[in-house]
């Protein structure tokens, strides 16, 4: 039997998700993470998984990997030593940034120091203007001297960042050649290759981050690729990128910054997969882990792409699945602010020491402690009892808060959960307004270890009436990896009037980009029927300073879904502007600033997994315990083991559903059904409480 394997590395566990190619049978495996070299846990976990689940490593046809190595290297500032070569007169641009402060009222907070210190930022004599003309030719003799200085600086990587290189990359390419000739061991990142888009600070920042990550990621990926080749010789390694598709190891080594949000993006893609199974095109996802919760909106089975993100305090202008993060997780700590109000998070006990109930020395009351004190989490512990929880320690941590409030211990715990729910609700409301949507029209899909614990309350406050808990909520990210396509994007940036006189130029550039996409398909061995092309124009009314994407999707079998002339482009833009901002203006001229071609190669698909067993009966509880919901008294609540639930079964809350990777709280009156793909679909009983 042949298998696809997804591997997602988390802070505590490395999750494995194996799917049989033929019949879609799914297998999960968890292995403790090895943060010093995450690759070790992957290699040993793969070996153990194969032994435990009876999988022959030679039958693994693909290993898809979502990695946090880049993210962690950025957060912990463990990247390489980077030099930068830039246009004469502009070496400080990287440090000036947008000249803003991160916190309006703080006299102490600064933007992070640039990853390339000033003495390693070198200027070369060259200048390209807005039309792409070299108004100052590249002075190669001077550049040769600069390259010597780069060598003397001892840098392991060099970012090449020229003004207007997005229009004309000749100077950057020449400098790149000279660097590679002279310093063959040096990693080189060109801004016109990393992201060919205008706005120099964001492009330079993205390029410098890429260079910073190259040494670390190349070492890591070389290790991983060679070890997996020994273990599973038929399995190419594919790396997950933040935009929601897979790429080859070679691409990942050239552009490691593309993995900066690899993990959460995989979760969103797994959520889309589940949404399709359940047949719900509109979903709000809530991926709640130990330190934070990721929220995304799925519309028409599409999580959407954003190019406007910061990672570790630096702007990154690359397509990434559109996810918002809020500091609300199982480890979020409850504390009193100076004005006496109770707050929860964003500070987190993390995994170590973790919440008080982990018994590893944490003494602050965390969200997990509150869940345990209320009976929502099993006193028998997590991961089927492999991780013990200390109820006494949880209550001891909450007691001083209850005392300060004059509350019973349970009421204080309910308060902690109410506040963490309010924090997540606020984040969901913010992204809904940003996209002009009403969450009441959406289903809530909760995953991550802590999502299903809080979904019922989040849905109630937002007035949502349906909750979906995927089949493996704790490892949805690993699942998302194996249902993803190969993906690559090709961009040209400039100012292109969307008028019929100028449309020929746009078509010419489109042809170039499509040709690049086709040769990428060839290089990646994507067969003709599996080639998909989309075109996106980032457009705006002339004089506006922001763009909206207009997208023409799904050219099948490599067909180009090009719009039919400038009229079609402007009409589509008016529509999009109307949808985003509630107005449009037909008399205003439209211009395109980025022309993007998105190529995706469909990888071999899994058969849809439908478990053989089915039942239309009521589920049977395995036990019961006292659980506090929103009232003053506990309710004797049946406990279900998710492994015993089969498709078609139903149950009515109050109930707790326990499984290896999460716990689902079903509020009194809510009606749970197990769908044919083994997802839990919960109809929320009450329409009350549309406001907190």
């Amino acid at each position, binding site marked *: 039997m042949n298998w696809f394997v997804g591997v997602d590395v988390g802070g505590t566990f490395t999750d494995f998700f194996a799917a049989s190619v033929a019949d879609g049978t799914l297998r999960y495996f968890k292995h403790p993470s090895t943060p010093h070299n995450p690759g070790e846990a992957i290699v040993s976990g793969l070996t153990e998984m194969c032994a435990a689940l009876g999988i022959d490593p030679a039958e693994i046809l693909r290993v898809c990997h979502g990695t946090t190595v880049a993210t962690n290297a950025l957060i912990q500032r463990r990247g390489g030593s980077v030099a930068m070569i830039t246009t*004469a*007169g*502009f*070496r*400080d*641009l990287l440090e*000036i940034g*947008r*000249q*803003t*402060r991160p916190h309006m*009222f*703080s*006299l*102490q907070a*600064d*933007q992070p120091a640039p990853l390339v210190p*000033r*003495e390693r930022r070198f200027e070369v004599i060259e200048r390209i*203007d*807005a039309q792409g003309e070299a108004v100052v030719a590249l002075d190669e003799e001077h550049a040769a001297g600069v390259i010597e200085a780069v060598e003397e600086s001892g840098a392991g990587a060099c970012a090449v960042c020229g*003004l*207007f290189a*997005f229009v004309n990359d000749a100077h950057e390419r020449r400098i790149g050649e000279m660097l590679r000739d002279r310093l063959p061991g040096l990693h080189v990142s060109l801004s016109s290759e990393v992201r060919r888009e205008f*706005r*120099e600070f964001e492009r330079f920042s993205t390029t410098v981050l890429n260079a910073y990550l190259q040494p670390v990621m190349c070492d890591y990926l070389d290790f991983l690729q060679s070890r997996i080749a020994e273990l599973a010789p038929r399995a190419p390694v594919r790396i997950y990128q933040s935009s929601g598709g897979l790429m080859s190891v070679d691409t990942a080594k050239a552009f490691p910054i593309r993995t900066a949000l690899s993990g959460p993006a995989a979760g969103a893609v797994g959520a889309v997969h589940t949404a399709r199974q359940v047949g719900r095109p509109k979903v709000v996802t809530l991926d709640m882990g130990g330190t934070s919760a990721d929220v995304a909106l799925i519309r028409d089975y599409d999580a959407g792409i954003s190019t406007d993100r910061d990672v570790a305090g630096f702007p990154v202008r690359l397509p990434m699945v559109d996810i918002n993060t809020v500091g609300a997780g199982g480890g979020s700590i409850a*504390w*009193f*602010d*100076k*004005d*006496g*109000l*109770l*707050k929860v998070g964003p500070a987190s006990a993390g995994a170590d020491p973790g919440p008080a109930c982990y018994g590893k020395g944490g003494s*602050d009351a965390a969200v997990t402690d509150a869940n345990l004190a209320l009976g929502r989490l099993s006193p028998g512990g997590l991961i089927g009892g492999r991780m013990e929880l200390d109820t006494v320690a949880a209550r001891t941590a909450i007691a*001083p*808060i209850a005392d*300060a*409030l004059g509350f019973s211990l349970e009421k204080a715990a309910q*308060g902690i959960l*109410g*506040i963490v729910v*309010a924090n997540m609700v*606020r984040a969901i*409301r*913010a992204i809904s*307004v940003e996209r*002009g949507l009403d969450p009441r029209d959406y289903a809530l899909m909760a995953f991550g270890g802590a999502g299903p614990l809080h979904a019922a309350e989040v849905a109630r406050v937002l007035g949502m009436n349906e909750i979906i808990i995927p089949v493996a909520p704790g490892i949805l990210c690993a699942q998302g990896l194996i249902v993803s396509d190969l993906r690559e994007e090709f961009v040209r940036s400039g*100012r292109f009037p969307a008028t019929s006189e100028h449309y020929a130029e746009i078509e010419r550039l489109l042809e170039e980009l499509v040709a690049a996409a086709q040769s990428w398909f060839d290089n990646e061995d994507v067969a003709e029927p599996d080639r998909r092309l989309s075109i996106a124009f980032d457009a705006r009314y002339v*004089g*506006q*300073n*922001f763009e909206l994407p207009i997208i023409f999707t799904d050219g099948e079998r490599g067909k180009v879904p090009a719009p039919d002339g400038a009229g079609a482009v402007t009409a589509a833009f008016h529509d999009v502007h109307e949808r*985003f*901002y*509630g107005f449009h203006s037909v*008399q205003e001229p439209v211009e395109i600033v980025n022309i993007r071609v998105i190529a995706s190669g469909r990888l071999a698909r899994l058969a849809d997994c439908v478990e053989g067993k089915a039942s239309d009966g009521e589920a049977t509880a395995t036990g019961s315990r006292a659980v506090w919901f929103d009232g003053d008294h506990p309710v004797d609540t049946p406990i279900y083991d998710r492994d015993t639930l089969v498709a078609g079964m139903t149950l009515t809350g109050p109930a707790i559903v326990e499984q290896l990777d999460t716990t689902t709280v079903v509020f009194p009156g809510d009606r749970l059904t197990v769908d044919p793909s083994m997802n839990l679909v919960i109809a929320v009983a009450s329409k009350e409480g549309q*406001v*907190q």
Partner: protein
Amino acid sequence: MSFPERANAGTLDPVRLEIMFNALRSAADESFIALMKSAYSTNIKERRDHSTAVMDPSGRLIVQADASLPIHLASMGGLMEALLGKFGGDIHEGDMFIANDPHVAGGTHLPDINMAMPVFHDGELVAFICNIAHHADIGGSVPGSMAGGMTEIYQEGLRVPVVRLFRQGELQQDLLDIVLLNVRVPVERRGDYYAQIAACRLGATRLSEIFSHYGVAAVREGFEQVIERTSKRMRAAIADLPDGIYRFEDVMDDDGVETSDIAIKLEITISGDDIHFDFRGTAPQVAGNINVTLNATQAAVCYTLIALLDPDAPNNQGVLDLPRITVEKGTLLDAVFPAPVAARANTCQRIIDVILGALADARPEAAVAAANGANTTAVFSGVDPRTGDSYVYLETIGGGFGGRSAKDGKDGVQVHITNTSNLPVESIEQEYPLMVRSYGFIEDSGGAGRFRGGLGLERIVEPVGHTCTFNGAGERFTHGPWGLFGGCSGKPGEFRHIDGGGTQSRLPNKPNGVKLRPSEAIMIRSPGAGGYGDPGEREAADLEGDAVSGKFSDEFLAGHYPHHGRDEK
């Protein structure tokens, strides 16, 4: 963790109150986002020069959106005072009010359009949802409505007193027609007004839901409690300051018209948890546009208190009511009709410096040396030779941030009351017939100190293929930003004209109508900032960094730090 005293409030415990306020903050935030998303002005969309707030029926500030601006802190209160004074008792469901005038309607300058919408519950007025947005134009003699050289507010743009834009749900089209006729690019501006209207409506809907859920009595009690709790929190921070009288004074360079060295004097008296700001002795208002109305003075005072004492404190009436402020009418800081006020932010920056200077001895660990203290403004305008269309390119340029008790001042950044981003060089050159020759830090511009001041910024801009006009507004171009506790002053800023042969000549601090031919250029140099503490105590590693980075010359380091390089010799 510190615990509060046992709560003894009525029905609202600290948990329920936190959750209710989370919903109220969310209402203000959502209103803020709705405004940003649908506005047309770059100022609003990209620079986020707007704010939203919830006020109670008596006009007290209850909650502001997180991203709201300090300068708008007090302005909404001013609007409410004018609104209630004029319409109290005659406010109806579906009304929406609009105003901008600093002299009669609580505004701080004309491009900031204020809107307020009453929220009713069961026929009773329970709250207002308000917003302020900086429009790209409000008429007047120069595009952008921000130019200097004028001496009466009439020249700065259209003045709008508090009037109804909607009367019981019905748009007063006649009024909107008058407004739009008086502003440039009315199609775009209409988009901005609609964005503000949409933001009010969304906020009002969310507030209604909150009142329905909690009941009017509980929300009212919540309003009282939050103001009281914030007031108590801030008072505790003031009580921690040593009692005493703290004095400081500084001067504005000039008003760009006729007056130089315009004094701002301050005496702060702290007694227990009471703090009194006495600005008597400050210079009379001036002919140029750097005058400040009392609301903006109050905003600057409150910003500084929060920044100095408790940066995470919520913004509500509990903060606004805290400082007692005495200012003489008709002076720079309480200017009266017909004073022009467009550039009031420059003066607000100086008020903040003066307060920081006065309180440095009271809170040395939180104090900051004078920052670049300006909104260095550069405006290039002309006719684009490629299209024949006229253009105006306006930018405010950051400078040094002051040295601090434990770290250097940041180089090249917007400070205090402003935090707007720059326009990318690649945007400037695509959109305007201009070329940026260079953009970087100014060597040696940060004042020496144990912790040095930040560097100013230099940018050189030339017109391409045409002759353009340059206007500028600089402050701290004559008097450099001072240092604290022995730290040295930062370097003042300046504008220079560069002719075709490369010869530079200094321009006035607030130049008007400078013609620039192709091959000529303007050099903008923003001020650095003052240092903190005795330069003799600067650590060798930090000096090494100053030298290696090239931010300071050997001559500067040798001249200001006698111990520099001593170990090497």
